[in-house]
Structure formats: structure tokens, C-alpha cells
């Protein structure tokens, strides 16, 4: 169990604000931290990692205090049992893939775990490459493997998949899911991507302006229970002729047949469009 109760003054989306977070995260769960830019997501992750210090509060992991402003306990990042994957992957450019992982290996630890990790993320063939010759997805795989070399209890990911293409994203999600289960990790991931959160996370911490808005399952946070059968769009009339009305809604121009009840509409009228019977078609 990770208990977080922290306060810190921060620059946020709407100027200076107070980050005030009080959440519990169960062991071996996969938690997504979701919310608009400047809500404090990355700051939360960095404070768990010890890269940023809260002004007040405490962070406790499985009964061990990592931070406590009252008793003045503040473990350095080195002494927290974490793996951190940075948004920019932070691979060391002067080292090969293998050397990046070897660097993370604690003294006297068994080297074979490095090759097992590289195997799990499918990178055995690239061990002698330097990061500059890898694609974005490959770099993030190396960063993920490297973060796990120390066999951390908690894996922290700061939007690790935001800069890769969709196909790579899906395959990286699979890697992440597999590693999370096989290694029994408690994983906390900052993500903007709703499908990704549905796929990976058991729990979502929804932050807004430094506060926890919701701390629930993805289905509850994204309101799947209240999903509707139809679709309602709000729009504005841009052109009217005898038989048709053209409406701008969500950046699209939609054409609707004139009918009795629309006779009084003119350019600039605000309207809502209702569609029932939604049908889906698979792309690619």
C-alpha cells in the first residue's frame, strides 16, 4: 500500500496553486494519473520518486516512510525502491543499450537479469547499439527495461508512450502489461490517453488544478455507466437554402434536410443535432 498525503505550492495551469493530494494506492495495482496539462500529474510522480520535495505531508510505502515533513524523513531517490521512466526516456547517450542496463545493475547482482529484461521487451538484437540509432519506441523499451533492472517495488512512468506511433504504442502497452504482472509491480503511470488507461489501469487518479477530482476505476472516471445510445452535437447554422441546412459542429460541416420545424432557422442560429442508430466501421 502506498499512502500519499502531500501539499506543495506549484506553478500550475492557472498560475500559482496548491497541489494537495491525499490518496492510497494498493500494492501491485496499476494506477493511471490523468488530468489536464498543469494539473500536477508529473509533480506527483516526481514527489513519489524523491526528485521533488513536498512542503508538507508524508509518503509511505508498505509501512516504510519515504517522506515525512514532521519527522524530517526524506529518502533520496537512490534510497527509494523505484524505477522511473522519463518522458524523454533519458537514456545515457554515451552508453550502448547493454551498458545503459549494466549501469543500473547493483553491485554483485546477477547479470542474467539484464538479458531476461531485454528479452521481455524484444531488444536482444540491439544490445550493442547506442541510443541515437534507435527509434522512439525502441528507446522507450530500453528505458523501461533499464528502470526495472534494480527490481523496484514501484514503477513510475511519466507519459512514456506519448511520443510513439499508434502501432508501437499498442505493442509497448502489451510489454508494460506483461511486465507489471510478471514482476508483481505497483505501477503508477501519467497518461492522457483514455483507451490506454482502459487497457492498462485498475484505477485512475483524476487530478484537476492540484486536487484529486476522482480516484476510481476507469469505468467510473470516464462515466461508462452513463453511456448513451445516441449522440448529440451542438452546432451553428452556416448556410440555408430551400432544401438543406448546413451546420458547423465539432469542426465538421453537416448537411441536414429542411423540414417544417427548421423553417425558422437562419445563419448563426444555434442548434443541437441528435443521431440515434450509431453504426461503426473499422478503420485499417
Amino acid at each position, binding site marked *: 500500500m502506498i499512502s500519499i498525503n502531500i501539499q506543495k505550492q506549484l506553478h500550475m495551469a492557472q498560475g500559482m496553486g496548491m497541489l494537495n493530494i491525499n490518496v492510497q494506492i494498493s500494492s501491485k495495482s496499476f494506477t493511471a494519473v490523468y488530468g489536464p496539462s498543469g494539473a500536477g500529474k508529473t509533480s506527483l510522480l516526481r514527489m513519489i520518486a524523491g*526528485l521533488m520535495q513536498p512542503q508538507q505531508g508524508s509518503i509511505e510505502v508498505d509501512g516504510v516512510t519515504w517522506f515525512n515533513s514532521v519527522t524530517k524523513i526524506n529518502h533520496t*531517490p*537512490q534510497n527509494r525502491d523505484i*524505477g522511473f521512466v522519463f518522458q524523454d526516456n533519458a*537514456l545515457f547517450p*554515451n552508453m550502448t543499450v547493454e551498458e545503459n542496463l549494466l*549501469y*543500473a545493475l547493483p553491485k554483485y547482482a546477477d547479470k542474467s537479469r539484464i538479458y531476461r529484461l531485454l528479452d521481455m521487451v524484444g531488444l536482444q538484437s540491439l544490445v550493442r547499439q547506442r541510443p541515437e540509432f534507435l527509434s522512439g519506441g525502441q528507446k522507450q523499451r530500453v528505458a523501461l527495461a533499464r528502470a526495472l*533492472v*534494480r527490481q523496484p517495488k514501484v514503477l513510475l512512468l511519466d507519459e512514456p508512450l506519448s511520443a510513439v506511433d499508434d502501432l508501437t504504442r499498442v505493442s509497448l502497452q502489451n510489454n508494460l502489461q506483461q511486465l507489471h504482472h510478471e514482476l508483481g509491480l505497483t505501477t503508477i503511470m501519467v497518461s492522457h490517453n483514455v483507451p490506454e488507461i482502459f487497457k492498462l489501469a485498475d484505477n485512475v487518479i483524476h487530478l484537476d488544478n492540484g486536487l484529486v477530482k476522482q480516484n476510481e476505476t476507469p469505468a467510473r472516471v470516464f462515466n461508462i455507466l452513463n453511456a448513451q445510445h445516441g449522440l448529440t452535437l451542438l452546432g451553428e447554422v452556416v448556410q440555408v437554402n430551400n432544401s438543406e441546412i448546413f451546420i458547423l459542429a465539432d469542426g465538421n460541416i453537416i448537411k441536414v434536410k429542411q423540414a417544417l420545424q427548421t423553417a425558422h432557422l437562419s445563419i448563426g442560429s444555434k442548434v443541437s443535432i441528435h443521431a440515434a442508430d450509431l453504426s461503426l466501421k473499422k478503420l485499417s
Partner: protein
Amino acid sequence: MYQPLWLTFKLAFVTTVCLIIIGIPIAAGLAQTKSKLKSIAEAVISLPLVLPPSVLGFYLLLAFSPQNGLGKMLNDVLNLRLIFSFTGLMLGSVIYSLPFMVHPVQAGLEALPVSLKEASQTLGKSNITTFFKVLLPNIKPALLTGAILTFAHTLGEFGLVLMIGGNIPGVTRVASIAVYDEVEALNFSTAHVYAGVLLAVSFVILLIVYTTNRHIFKKRITQ
């Protein structure tokens, strides 16, 4: 005849080695600190860039003089005479060339993404290990630039050397002073040798700096 050249290169080499040892920690400290005193420290280190060498030499002459505080103490306690000696020249050169080592290294360190250092910390590595294994190896061009510029700048010293070293053959008579001396004595052929060697070496050194930096710059762009 070659003694002044030998002395010049010896001084430049020793100064560069000293500054690699002293300058890198100073640069690292400046790159890291958020202290309000940072600007003052930067200004002090940069003084030799704008100060006439003779002014710096004048103050060092006073400081090193066996009649005054520091020089007297060094003289009495360590039996070390800094005036008109190679050691004094070396110390002066280290101060004189300090910005040429500190600036490139500090800029190099400041340009590295913070995440490199943070990643190393989250991998359990101490700040010292992080510095030597991650940060320094990734600023090689800056280190090379700092070392080469320090070397070249020391080759070109004149005013400072004259003030604190004088013109003692084999001890403090470096090539730049020898050129002046030979011209004064109308020995143009000897002056040509010194001047030619200094010109050629300085040019080659700057050429190396610019080629390596451009090469690295290009490599970064194509990534």
C-alpha cells in the same frame, strides 16, 4: 634558442592540467548551484577576460611579493618564492586562463537535460558516480574545447608573465616575451622563429576546436 618555446609549451601544458583538475569542479558547482552568490562567482572568474593582463599581473605581483602577507607567508612557511619563478608563472596562468576552462564546461553541463542526472539517481547511483559516468562523458566536446582554449590562451600570455615572471632565460622567458626581446635587439630572424611557431600552433589549435565542434553540431542536427 628553443628554450623559450620549450618553456612556453611546458607552462601551457602544466596550466591546462591544473585547470582540468581545478576548473571542472568549479564549473560543476556553478552549473548546479541556485545560490545568489553565483553571479558574483561568475563575474570574478570572468575578470581575466576583460582585465588588462598587466593589471592582473600587478595585483598578483603584490600578492606574491615576499614583503607582503601571502607571499611572505609562503616564503617563510613553505620556502616558496612565487615572484620571478616558474611556479609563480604557473599560478598566474591558472588564474588568467580560468574562464577559458570554466565557461565551456559549465555551458556543456547546463545544456545537458536534467533527466540524465535524475535517471541516474533513480537508478541508485551517487552524485559522484553520476558526474563521472554520465555527465562528464556526455560533454566531451566542451571538455576538449576548454582544454584546448586554455592551452592556446596560455601560449599567448605576455603582460602577466612580464609582470610576475620577468624575463629570466630558462625560468620565465617564454616565447611571447622572447619575440619582444629579439625584436628590441633587432634579431629579426630569431623573432621570426618564435612568432612563426606561435602563429602556426595557435592556428592549428583553433582549427581543431572549430572542426570538432562543427562535427558534433552536425551530428546532433541529423539525429
